[in-house]
């Protein structure tokens, strides 16, 4: 069974704080993605990657950094968190061999106060 695991599942931080969201996939997929989900906006792509060391800029990258350390691990970094980054974050993985189907984690809810 394909698996994507996110941590932490819930996080509260203060404005200006430093947050790292982690994602690990055991699917042996090349592609990994970070999305944020907000009411009225659906899922918006923050950053994505097609392999270790690779990073592609998504549609809403401002205020976010990301790093793909291995094929399995993709991290999303908020170095100076702001209330506008309060959101539900999803990680996903995919591969051409799986017909481009995305496999999602269960989400990480971040609150910035």
């Amino acid at each position: 069974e394909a698996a994507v695991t996110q941590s932490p599942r819930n996080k509260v931080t203060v404005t200006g704080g430093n947050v790292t969201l982690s994602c690990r996939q055991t699917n042996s997929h090349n592609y990994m993605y970070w999305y944020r989900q907000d009411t009225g906006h659906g899922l918006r792509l923050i950053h994505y990657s097609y392999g270790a060391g690779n990073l592609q800029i998504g549609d809403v990258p401002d205020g976010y950094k990301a790093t793909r350390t291995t094929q399995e691990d993709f991290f999303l970094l908020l170095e100076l968190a702001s209330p506008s980054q309060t959101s539900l974050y999803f990680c996903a993985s995919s591969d051409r061999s799986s017909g481009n189907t995305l496999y999602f984690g269960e989400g990480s809810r971040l609150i910035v106060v």
Partner: protein
Amino acid sequence: TQTVSQSDAHVTVFEGDSVELRCNYSYGGSIYLSWYIQHHGHGLQFLLKYYSGNPVVQGVNGFEAEFSKSDSSFHLRKASVHWSDSAVYFCAVSAGSSNTNKVVFGTGTRLQVLP
């Protein structure tokens, strides 16, 4: 760049009714089109996809979708809905020939099925 729009934010039907959830896209080249379902409090799960061939694709749990190049659409349908189909449905598009495989989602349609 590819974009996708879902014109209906909310759709309410009764159990046993048929339903169509609308999805329109814009992109000039070959594309992957997909539908995903999100139950409350969970991540998204794959329903079905189209890349080429028969424009009507079958998915899990009685869902199907039809690709139309002339209308730039990929609408999702179900002939008879069940209360458990209540969820948020997302349409997604990615460029078929892209090495980077960017996948873009619509804003979602919340389907409410009444008993």
